[in-house]
């Protein structure tokens, strides 16, 4: 799916691969996400998100993705889902909400699909 991820190098459609290359591109952004485990950091982030992004050395594109809560772009720009999820949690968003975004189904349909036993290939 995401051209930015390692998926293109392997035959795994719809599946971003968090590989070494991706991890390097996302390192600063993932560090930012991990910092949000701490209440003080969450406060500082919320007080001035752009400044916080710059402090962590995000690229302009990464910063925009964070400010816009563009979850797909965060993944494409090197975010690890486990790290990106720290930001989603802070926003009160669930993993199912993110699933709705990544699949384009929306949260409600995604949740319904999961309750019905999950999605299948193809």
């Amino acid at each position: 799916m995401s051209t930015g991820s390692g998926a293109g190098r392997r035959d795994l459609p719809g599946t971003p691969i968090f590989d070494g290359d991706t991890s390097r591109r996302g390192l600063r952004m993932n560090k930012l996400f991990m910092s949000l485990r701490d209440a003080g950091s969450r406060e500082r982030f919320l007080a001035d998100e752009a400044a916080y992004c710059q402090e962590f050395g995000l690229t302009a594109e990464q910063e925009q993705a964070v400010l816009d809560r563009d979850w797909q772009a965060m993944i494409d720009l090197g975010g690890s889902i486990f790290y990106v999820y720290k930001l989603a949690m802070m926003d009160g968003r669930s993993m199912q909400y993110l699933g709705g975004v990544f699949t384009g189904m929306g949260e409600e349909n995604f949740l319904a699909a999961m309750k019905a036993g999950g999605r299948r290939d193809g």
Partner: protein
Amino acid sequence: MAEVIWGLATSHVPSIGAAMDRGKSDDPAWKALFDGYAPARAWLAEHRPDVAIVVYNDHANGIDLDFVPTFGLGTAERYDVADEGFGRRPVPDVVGDPELSFHLVESLVDDGFDLTIFQELDVDHGFTVPLSVWTPDPGDAWPCPVIPLLVNVIQYPQPTAARCLALGQALGRAIRSYPKDVTVGVLGTGGMSHQLAGTRAGFINPEFDAFWMEKIETDPAALAALSREELIRQAGSEGIELIMWLIMRGP
């Protein structure tokens, strides 16, 4: 001589821990799951080991991505429960067993496993949820000391399934060569098929899960033969964490 008295595997999805922490185990949404655990829990209550090893992965709580160890082993006296961003789980911190840890490190390094030693480590839901599945009401302390064995399952390339089974087999040899007469339980953790990101998010493969459940008992070598790509294709990009069950299965 130490002896492995059981090996068990379970998902470690954080909501299982959250459901328990909030007393929701009997809610309609959760009851089926916890009923499913009941026989194992009853059996486990009768078979308490002297020490346990939990094979798990961290999720951006104990370590960050500055360095990514393929296999890590804790040697600490205690491991604190991490605050993952929503307050720490109301469960006890973990008491370790450094003496057994040192023995395992020496034995496994001599056996050609290139461990990273952790002298300090906060443990997250990947570690505490399996403990809660095992021991729903730990009170002030978990039933025994526990040693963490960390596996990189989130950054590609993960260790191969074959390497995980080999590590498990070496772990068995290491435990059995420990001079103290202690009993050891080994918990493998990690969800079955699932994927969190991409257009394939929400992917579940019940046929593969059933195949895995059967083979983990009867023919782990068949699972160890699966390639990294095949595991991701069949189990999803996060389902690859099933490789941790093969370490548990080795002893």
